[in-house]
């Protein structure tokens, strides 16, 4: 089984420097793209590969790039931004790529910036990722010295400056347009769309924002082609994916596996099954902002469309497992508390709805909840849903809430009728 993204990551030892990275074939993608391909050919190749964005939304990367104006006007500054603000609870995949192979990300960014003809690029990095930050800064220095960054890269006439911006906290910075506001030195409030960043992004210029895992793919696709990429998945979508499992399992971790493996394989073969004495009750398949799946869904294929078909989202591909020793109400409360705390406060359903939801859940968990709260929670989940807010924060928060109410209804009712948490 091929593991293109992680084959050069050796847990426990330091990441390859530029020279070591080149010895295992690194920068062949940059050579090929900048010397033998036009920017349009790179974009078309990525489009043909059907690389879906790995940040959680699964939007086709090549399509995103093709929205950038390519009118050849050199004075029009454009930007490429790498979203490395990983902060979705239960998600620990970008950290693995950032710490393990920064050169792979930089190579991917050079090719991507070339494709959209952006001459400035930023890596918007979670402040807490200190090891990743020092590794990236060192890797960027090496790339400048080797002539892969800076002016006239490999004699192609293409210039690129790459900067690392370490954040100052807040989950909302991971939202594409909030991230751009933050990069502009402002409060990280999501922007109204349209205009989309491809037309008016960073400093009002055409901008592409892509996730770390997405950008780490680009050199491999350029080198090996779209058909190779498609063949990596079991479902034809394209590619492997970093999957992860956390919670009460024997072997929590992150693994690069083909898109389309089943949730059961992930849980049992890779995560080693449940810790002894614990039973599986459900899981958020792709981070905190995805709907619960339960035992009946264990054979679902882990891919964007197949997980969506059973009412959840693949999200970041990193699963949080709910076991029978953990109270599902406490689980949902913890997640909603996170979303309430991290709301930027810009729109009403999110700013007002989430603290209300959080208070009702605390009270149910503590045994003072009322039956009418169940309807009120469901009402809020609906009201926070898609179409009522500027960004996906509240709709994301609604997902574990609505599905938690559905699948663990009896547990919610028991808390209220017994006036206590059965797990306490």
């Amino acid at each position: 089984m091929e593991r293109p993204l992680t084959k050069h990551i050796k847990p426990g030892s330091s990441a390859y420097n530029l020279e070591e990275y080149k010895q295992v074939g690194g920068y062949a993608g940059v050579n090929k793209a900048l010397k033998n391909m036009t920017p349009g050919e790179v974009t078309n190749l990525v489009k043909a590969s059907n690389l879906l964005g790995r940040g959680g939304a699964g939007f086709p990367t090549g399509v995103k790039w093709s929205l950038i104006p390519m009118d050849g006007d050199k004075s029009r500054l454009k930007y490429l931004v790498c979203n490395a603000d990983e902060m979705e609870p239960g998600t620990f995949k970008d950290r693995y790529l950032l710490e393990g192979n920064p050169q792979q990300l930089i190579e991917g960014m050079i090719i991507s910036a070339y494709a959209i003809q952006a001459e400035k690029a930023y890596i918007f990095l979670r402040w807490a990722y200190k090891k990743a930050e020092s590794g990236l800064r060192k890797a960027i220095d090496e790339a400048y010295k080797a002539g892969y960054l800076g002016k006239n890269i490999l004699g192609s006439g293409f210039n690129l400056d790459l900067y690392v911006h370490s954040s100052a906290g807040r989950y909302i910075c991971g939202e594409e347009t909030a991230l751009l506001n933050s990069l502009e030195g402002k409060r990280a409030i999501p922007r109204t769309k349209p205009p989309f960043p491809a037309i008016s992004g960073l400093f009002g210029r055409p901008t592409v924002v892509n996730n770390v895992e997405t950008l780490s793919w680009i050199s491999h696709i350029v080198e090996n082609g779209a058909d190779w990429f498609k063949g990596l998945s079991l479902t034809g979508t394209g590619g492997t994916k970093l999957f992860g499992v956390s919670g009460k399992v024997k072997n929590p971790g992150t693994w690069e596996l083909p898109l389309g493996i089943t949730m059961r394989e992930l849980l049992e073969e890779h995560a080693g099954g449940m810790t002894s004495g614990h039973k599986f009750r459900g899981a958020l398949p792709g981070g905190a902002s995805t709907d619960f799946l339960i035992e009946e869904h264990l054979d679902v294929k882990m891919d964007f469309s197949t997980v969506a078909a059973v009412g959840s989202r693949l999200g970041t591909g990193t699963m949080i497992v709910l076991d029978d020793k953990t109270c599902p109400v406490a689980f949902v409360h913890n997640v909603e508390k996170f979303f309430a705390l991290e709301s930027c406060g810009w729109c009403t359903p999110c700013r007002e709805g989430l603290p209300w939801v959080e208070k009702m859940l605390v009270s149910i968990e503590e045994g003072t909840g009322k039956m009418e709260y169940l309807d009120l929670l469901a009402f809020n989940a609906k009201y926070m849903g898609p179409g009522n807010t500027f960004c996906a924060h509240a709709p994301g928060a609604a997902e574990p809430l609505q599905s938690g109410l559905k699948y663990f209804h009896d547990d919610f009712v028991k808390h209220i009728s017994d006036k206590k948490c059965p797990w306490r």
Partner: protein
Amino acid sequence: MLTREEIKEIEEEIKQYPSPAVACIDALKIIQHHRGWVSDESVKDIAEFLDISNEDVDGIATFYSRIYRKPVGRNVILLCDNVTCMIMGYQSLFEYISRKLGINFGGTTPDGRFTLLPISCLGDCDNAPVLMINTDHYNRLTIEKIDELLESYK
């Protein structure tokens, strides 16, 4: 007053942006790095230096969770309280640290040695529970490890 060193560092950040105002978050981080937190006076100094209003700087400073507008201890403990860490035993760690230091979330020990704060997911869930002290990351924590860990921060 901004020190010469702070000004130099802020100017270095301004270089990568189209206008000085963009460096506001960087400036706040630089001040905090040197002084531990951001006072009202520092907000004014940054506003003046970057030619933006005090209100804008304060609006930005109070938005970001890693900018402190109140004094904190010499060492800041950031304990993850998100869902995987909850499942993996964050509560007992919190109770132990809180009792040992005699402070709740948001509190600072009377000797100014530690401030205890909650933090959202630190992206190391397969090694939960986790915390950071200042910029150092620690995982697979147990109560037994806490005493020794805290001892190394004076």
